[in-house]
C-alpha cells in the first residue's frame, strides 16, 4: 500500500536519508526511531511530499505518490512537531476550518472527536491560551477527523501527560484496527502491540 524505495535526501551538504526503504500494509504501524538529526522528520516530510528527494520514490496504492498528489494527500493526515493551529481561533473553529477544506464536517463530528481526545472542555477557548499538551489534543482530534487512511505523525505524544500518551497509543491501535496505516517518528515507547509494529531505525550506517 505505502512503499518507499531507495530514498536519498540531502539537507544542505548533509546526506540525511541514505537509501531508505520502507513498506507498510493496512493495519500496520511503522515506528521511526533514531537519534536527534537521524532524519525521522525528514523522512516523514518526504513521504508526505513536502520534501523532494534527490533519488528514490514514494508510492501509494501502487502508483507514484507524486503523480497522483491530490488523491494521495486526500488519504493522508500529517501531524508535525507543532500543532497546526491558529492561536486567535478556538480549537473548535480551527478544526471546522482545517477539516472543512478537506471534507464536509458537521459540528457533531467535531464534538465527538474533541470528546475522544479529551479536548472538549477547552475546545471553545482561544488556542493561544491553551497549554502545549492541550493543543496537541486538539490537533489529534484533527487527525481523527480527517478520516485519512495514512497517518504520518511526528512525535505524536510530545507534551502529553501519561494519560495522553496512552490515548495516542489507543488512537493508533484503533486506526490500525480500521485498516489504516500509521508511520510515526517516536522517541518514547508508545506501548503498542508488537504484532502490528515494524521499527525502522534511522541514522544507522
Amino acid at each position, binding site marked *: 500500500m505505502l512503499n518507499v524505495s531507495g530514498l536519498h535526501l540531502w539537507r544542505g551538504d548533509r546526506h540525511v536519508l541514505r537509501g531508505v526503504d520502507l513498506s507498510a500494509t493496512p493495519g500496520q504501524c511503522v515506528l521511526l526511531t533514531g537519534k536527534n538529526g537521524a532524519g525521522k522528520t525528514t523522512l516523514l516530510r518526504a513521504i*508526505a*511530499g*513536502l*520534501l*523532494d528527494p534527490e533519488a528514490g520514490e514514494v508510492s501509494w496504492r501502487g502508483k507514484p505518490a507524486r503523480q497522483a498528489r*491530490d*488523491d*494521495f*494527500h*486526500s*488519504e*493522508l493526515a*500529517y501531524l*508535525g512537531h*507543532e*500543532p*497546526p*493551529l*491558529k*492561536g*486567535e*481561533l478556538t480549537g473548535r*473553529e480551527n478544526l471546522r*476550518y*482545517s477539516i*472543512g*477544506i*478537506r*471534507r*464536509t464536517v458537521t459540528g457533531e463530528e467535531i464534538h465527538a472527536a474533541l470528546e475522544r481526545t479529551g479536548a472538549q472542555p477547552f475546545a471553545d477557548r482561544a488556542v493561544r491560551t491553551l497549554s502545549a499538551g492541550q493543543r496537541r489534543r486538539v490537533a489529534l482530534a484533527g487527525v481523527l477527523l480527517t478520516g485519512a487512511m495514512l497517518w504520518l505523525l511526528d512525535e505524536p505524544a510530545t507534551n502529553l501527560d501519561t494519560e495522553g500518551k496512552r490515548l495516542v497509543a489507543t488512537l493508533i491501535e484503533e486506526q490500525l484496527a480500521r485498516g489504516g496505516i500509521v508511520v510515526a517518528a517516536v522517541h518514547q515507547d508508545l506501548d503498542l502491540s508488537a504484532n502490528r509494529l515494524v521499527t525502522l531505525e534511522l541514522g544507522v550506517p
Partner: protein
Amino acid sequence: MKTGALEAARLVMARDLRLAFRKPSQLLQPLMFFMIVATLFPLTLTPELSRLRDAAPGVLWVGALLSSLLALEFLFRDDAQDGTLEQFALSGQSLTWMLFAKTCVHWLLTGLPLALSAPLAAVGLGVPAEAMWSVVASLALGGFALSLIGAISAGLTLGARRGGVLLSLLTLPLAVPILVFGANATQRAITGGEIAPPMYLLGAIAVLGVTLAPLAAAAAVRIGLE
C-alpha cells in the same frame, strides 16, 4: 464527502477574515502608514493647492505601494510558521485556489480600505471632489493587481531570512507598471481627462495577475515549504 475547490477557498477566506478581525493591528498598520505619508507630505512640500495637486498622484500611489508592501509580509508568513500552509498543501485541495482566496482577503483587508480612505488623504492634496471616485476606483483596481503580484513575491521569500527586504526588492520592479498607469489615471482624474485608457491597462494587469499569480504563488509556496 470531499469539499469542492470553491468551498475550500470560501472557508480559507472566512477563516482569514475572522482571524484579521481578532488581530486588528495588522489591518490598521498599512492604513495608518498610508494616512501618515499622505498627511505629512503637504506639510513638507507647499501650502499651494495647485502644486500639491500636481504631486497628488505620486504621493497617493507611492504611499499606497509602500503600505501594500508592509502588509504583504504577513500574507503567508504566519501560516507558514504555524504549519497551516503545510496543511493546505497536504489537504488534497488545489493550493492555487486557496492561495488565491488568501490573496483576495489580503486585498479586501488592505487594498480596499486603503482605496476607500484615499479621499481623506486626497483632500489634503487638493484633489477636486469630482475626481474622488476615479481616485478610489484606480487605487482599488491597482491595489488588487499589487496584491496578486505581491503574492508571488511573498511565496518566493517564504523560506528566506529577512524576507521582508527581499520581498520589497522582488515586488517593486514588477509593481512599476501598476504605479505608472495608476498615477496616470489619478492625474487624468484630477485634470478632468479621460481615465479609461490607464484603467483598462490596470485591468489588464489585474486579469493577467488573476490568471498567473495564484499558480506562480502556489509553486513558490511549495518550494518555500521544503
